[in-house]
C-alpha cells in the first residue's frame, strides 16, 4: 500500500468531516436561531449609532400608535418605543452573555475541582452547590437583588449566583467520568500535575457539552434579567430595558404596543438562543463523533493499511 493512497482516504474522511458541520447547522431551526441571534447581537453592539431618537428623549406626542413617524409607537412620556427597544438590546444582551460566561467559568471551575479531587473537597463544594440549587431560581435571585439594592449590576450578580450551580453539577459528572480514563492515568504516570491533568487532559474533552449548556442558558439568563427588571429589581427608570418597559406598560393598559414589542423582543432572542443551543448540541453529539471515528477507521482499513 502507498502512503499517498492512505493520505487520500484520510483527506476524503477529513472532507466529509468538514461537510458535516454545516449539515448539522443546516437544520431549519438551527438556521433561524443563528440568523435571529446574530441579528440581535449586531443590534446590541451598534444600536446606539443608528436609532432614530434618543431613547430617553421625551420629544414625541404621548402614546402615539405604531405608524410612519414612529415605527413602534411612543410610550406614556413621549419616548420612541423602537429606539428604546433597540437600545434595550445593548443593555440586555451583552449583560446576559457576560452573566452566562461568568456563571460558566465559576461553575466549571467548582465542578472540575470537586470532581477531580473528590473526597472532602467534592463533598464541601457539592453541598454548597446543593444549597444554592435548593432555592427556586427566581426567588433566590429576587432575595439577592433586593438585599444588594435594585440596580442592573446587582441583578447580574444575583443571576450569576443562581445560575453557576448547574454548570458545577454537569462539569463534575463529566470530570468524574473522564478521571478514570486511560489517557488521564497515562498523563499522571508521566508526571502531570493535577492542574495540567485538568487543563490539558480533562477540560478540552468536556468543554463541548458545557458550551451547549451555556448557549441554552443565554435565553434563560435574558428571561431572568428581564424578569428582575420587570419586578423593579434590575434596570431602574429611565434606563431602556425590556423587562422594565413591559413593567411600565402596565400603567397604560390600552396601548397594546407598549408591552407587545418588548415581549416579542424577549421571545425572539430567547427562542433564537435556544435553537442555537439545540443545533450546537446536535453538532457536538458524542454519538455523531463515534460514527465519524468509525468512518475514518473504515476508510483507513479499506485501503488495506497494516496497522
Amino acid at each position: 500500500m502507498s502512503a499517498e493512497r492512505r493520505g487520500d482516504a484520510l483527506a476524503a474522511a477529513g472532507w466529509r468531516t468538514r461537510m458535516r458541520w454545516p449539515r448539522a447547522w443546516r437544520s431549519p431551526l438551527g438556521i433561524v436561531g443563528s440568523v435571529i441571534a446574530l441579528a440581535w447581537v449586531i443590534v446590541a453592539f451598534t444600536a446606539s449609532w443608528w436609532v432614530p431618537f434618543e431613547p430617553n428623549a421625551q420629544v414625541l406626542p404621548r402614546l402615539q400608535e405604531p405608524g410612519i413617524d414612529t415605527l413602534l409607537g411612543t410610550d406614556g412620556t413621549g419616548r420612541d418605543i423602537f429606539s428604546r427597544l433597540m437600545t434595550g438590546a445593548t443593555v440586555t444582551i451583552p449583560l446576559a452573555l457576560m452573566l452566562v460566561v461568568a456563571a460558566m467559568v465559576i461553575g466549571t471551575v467548582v465542578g472540575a475541582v470537586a470532581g477531580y479531587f473528590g473526597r472532602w473537597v467534592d463533598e464541601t463544594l457539592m453541598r454548597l452547590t446543593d444549597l444554592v440549587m435548593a432555592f427556586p431560581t427566581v426567588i433566590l435571585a429576587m432575595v439577592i437583588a433586593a438585599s444588594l439594592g435594585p440596580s442592573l449590576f446587582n441583578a447580574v450578580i444575583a443571576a450569576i449566583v443562581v445560575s453557576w450551580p448547574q454548570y458545577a453539577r454537569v462539569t463534575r459528572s463529566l470530570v468524574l467520568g473522564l478521571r478514570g480514563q486511560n489517557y488521564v492515568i497515562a498523563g499522571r504516570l508521566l508526571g502531570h500535575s493535577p492542574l495540567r491533568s485538568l487543563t490539558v487532559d480533562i477540560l478540552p474533552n468536556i468543554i463541548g457539552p458545557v458550551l451547549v449548556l451555556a448557549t441554552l442558558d443565554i435565553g434563560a439568563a435574558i428571561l431572568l434579567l428581564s424578569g428582575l427588571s420587570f419586578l423593579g429589581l434590575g434596570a431602574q427608570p429611565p434606563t431602556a430595558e425590556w423587562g422594565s418597559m413591559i413593567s411600565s406598560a402596565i400603567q397604560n393598559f390600552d396601548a397594546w404596543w407598549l408591552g407587545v414589542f418588548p415581549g416579542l423582543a424577549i421571545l425572539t432572542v430567547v427562542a433564537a438562543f435556544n435553537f442555537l443551543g439545540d443545533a450546537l448540541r446536535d453538532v457536538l453529539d458524542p454519538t455523531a463523533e463515534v460514527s465519524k471515528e468509525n468512518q475514518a477507521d473504515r476508510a483507513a482499513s479499506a485501503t488495506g493499511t497494516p496497522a
Partner: protein
Amino acid sequence: MTDRIVLDARDLVVRYPGSPPVVAVDGVSLRIGAGETVALVGESGSGKSSVARAVAGIDRPAEGEVLFDSAPVSPLGIRRRARSLTAIQMVFQDPSTSLNPRRRVGDQVSDGIAAARARGLAASRPEEWFERVGLDTSWVSRFPHQFSGGQKQRVAIARALAARPHLLVADEPISALDASTQTSVAALMRDLVAELGAGMLFISHDLAVVRRIADRTLVMYGGRVMETGPTAEIWDSPRHPYTRSLLAAIPVPDGAGRIPVAPTADERASWTAIPPIEN
C-alpha cells in the same frame, strides 16, 4: 539480562470493596530484572490486570509491597507523581481510550519525552519515536481519531517508551488488535524494551504470542500464581493441571474442526487445591 532487579513485588493482595470483599489478587510475588520480559497469563478474572495496576502504582495493594529500583512505589494520589516513578510506564488494553482525543499525537509523545528529560535524560523528538514504532514521521500533527486501532496502540507505545522507562507494564496491549497485527506489535514492544534495557511485565491471555516474546511466564488462576518458570519450559512441559488446561484450550487447526473442551466445574475447583509450582 542483567542481575539488576527493577521490580520486586512481594505478597501482593488486592481487594475490591463489597460484601464479602472480592479478593482479586491473593499473595502474588514477582521479580523482573532489567531487560527481562515477564509474561502474566491466565483467564479473565484471574487478577492479571489488578496485579498490573498495583505494580504500576495506579491502585494501592491491600497488603504486600512493591519495590521499584529498590524504592517503594507510592500509589497515584492527588499530587504530581514523584519524578523517579515516571520510569514506570504503562500501555493499556484499549487503544481507543489511551490517547487524549483532543491533542495531537506528537504532543502526547512529547509528554513522554518531557518526563524523560525531567529525570535528566537526553532529549529526543517525537518523530524519532514514531519511526521506531513504525509510524510515518509526518503523522505527528494528526489527531488520534485519524489512526486505526493498531496505529493508536503504536502511538501509546511510543509515548510510554519516550519516557525511557525502566519498567513497562503492558496490560493486554494486543488483545484489542486484530490477529495480523498482534504479533508484530508484541515483537515491537519486546525489541524496543530490550533496546532500552528495561524490564517488561507483559499481560496477555494469548499464549502463542507470550511464547514468542517472554523470557519467563507466570500463570495466574483465581488471584494466585499457579506456575512460574521459563516460558519454553512451561510451554513444553506444563506441570500444573491449570497450565495444561490453558494450553489445551488453544485450538489446533488440524482440519478436523475440533473445538477444545471447556473444563468442568470439578476440574476448576481442583486447581486451587494444588499448590503452586515453581520451575
